């Protein structure tokens, strides 16, 4: 079964940042083969945040790994920023992953020996930018997010919510247009989790494309579209745009 999601109006105008075309992923072979994804088609445009929900084992992690070019589909195609991944060499793939895709993890994954600004500037340094310039860009990003006061703090001097906001800034530094977030609020309390979601939402409103995996319906509700996976298939997808008449007053 293949579920195709309609693209929203604004994504028609711009090229989708991420496109999955009839993607399947089979782990192993023969009798023990596991069909993690069975024909997933999905596209995310600039400015869009998509949430993926579903029970454990439904294929969410596989979907995220394939979207982030960390894993390749068994059949089907993946395009990031207009580039078809299967045509890339390993080196080209690594470069695309480094320069276009940012990942946010549940446990933040900041480097403990680097300050917030150094953590955010690191991907730029890896891209070849000199350290001073990278640090300036990082500070500019922190200022834009209202987090400039955290620039010189080390991760262990930041709260969980602050670390995660720094991690989002790092994920979208420079030319990165796609942010993949794997349970980014999993380790946070409810109010702090909301703040992190609000930041992710704001970065998408500012032009990024986001794919968010979450177990929290309340957090998924920040997305433009919510996709339910079960047994590797999209069983349900709905967007806030085609919701019915208004609620409450």
């Amino acid at each position, binding site marked *: 079964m293949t579920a195709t999601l309609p693209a929203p109006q604004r994504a028609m105008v711009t090229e989708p940042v991420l496109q999955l075309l009839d993607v399947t992923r089979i782990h192993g072979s023969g009798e023990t083969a596991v069909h993690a994804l069975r024909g997933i088609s999905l596209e995310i445009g600039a400015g869009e945040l998509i949430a993926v929900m579903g*029970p454990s084992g439904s294929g969410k992690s596989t979907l995220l790994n394939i979207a982030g070019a960390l894993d390749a589909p068994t059949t089907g195609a993946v395009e990031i920023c207009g580039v078809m991944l299967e045509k890339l060499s390993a080196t080209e793939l690594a470069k695309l992953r480094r320069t276009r895709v940012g990942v946010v993890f549940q446990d933040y994954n900041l480097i403990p020996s680097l300050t917030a600004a150094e953590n955010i500037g690191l991907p730029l340094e890896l891209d070849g930018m000199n350290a001073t310039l990278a640090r300036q860009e990082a500070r500019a990003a922190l200022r834009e997010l209202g987090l400039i006061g955290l620039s010189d703090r080390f991760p262990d001097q930041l709260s969980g919510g602050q670390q995660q906001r720094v991690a989002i800034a790092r994920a979208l530094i420079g030319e990165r247009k796609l942010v993949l977030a794997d349970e980014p609020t999993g380790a946070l309390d409810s109010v702090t989790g909301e703040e992190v979601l*609000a930041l992710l939402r704001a970065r998408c409103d500012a032009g990024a494309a986001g794919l968010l995996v979450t177990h*929290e*319906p*309340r957090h*998924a*509700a*920040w*997305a433009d579209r*919510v996709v*339910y996976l079960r047994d590797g298939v999209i*069983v*349900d997808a*709905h*967007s*806030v745009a085609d*919701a*019915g008449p*208004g*609620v*409450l*007053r």
Partner: protein
Amino acid sequence: MSIKHGLLALLSEGPAYGAALKADFEQRTGNTWPVNVGQVYTTLDRLQRDALVAADDPDAEGRIRYRLTDDGRTELDRWWRTPVDRQATPREELVIKLALAVDSPGIDSSAVAQAQRSATMHRLQQLTRLKTSIDVATDFAWLMVVEHQLFAAEAEIRWLDQLEASLSRYGHRTPTPSAASEHPTAAEVSR
């Protein structure tokens, strides 16, 4: 709950006319509970009868101001201190619909649950947008009302997820009449 305690709470802030009480009540509860003016006056009459509220003599325009009595203040204090009773048997359409669906032949209860979850997720998305548009500094009560709706919608989605998981794990089971009679009623459970 009637609007009785709501009116007592408003009157504890000072005497007020009936029309102002109606407007205040609606505004302070984020318009989630529209009341008509007749309802307000009927309730005020009853409160007056029970000596929880006293009425001034009509002013030149014939309007009557109401004020809280000492008994009224005692009753209001008791209300603030007493938790809302959640033990009552739920009579929600959704619960009844799904309870019937799981044992109805030919009805795919997973599909019923999924359609509901989809609709509730829509609502959750709308409420989230609504919430971000609220000015917390001026409209905190409204924020609180919306957040209550958000958490209620979330709880419903979690319950539907759980139901779907249970359905796929245990499959559909048609109870025999004797088995059905072994289920305790909700009222028994709550005891």
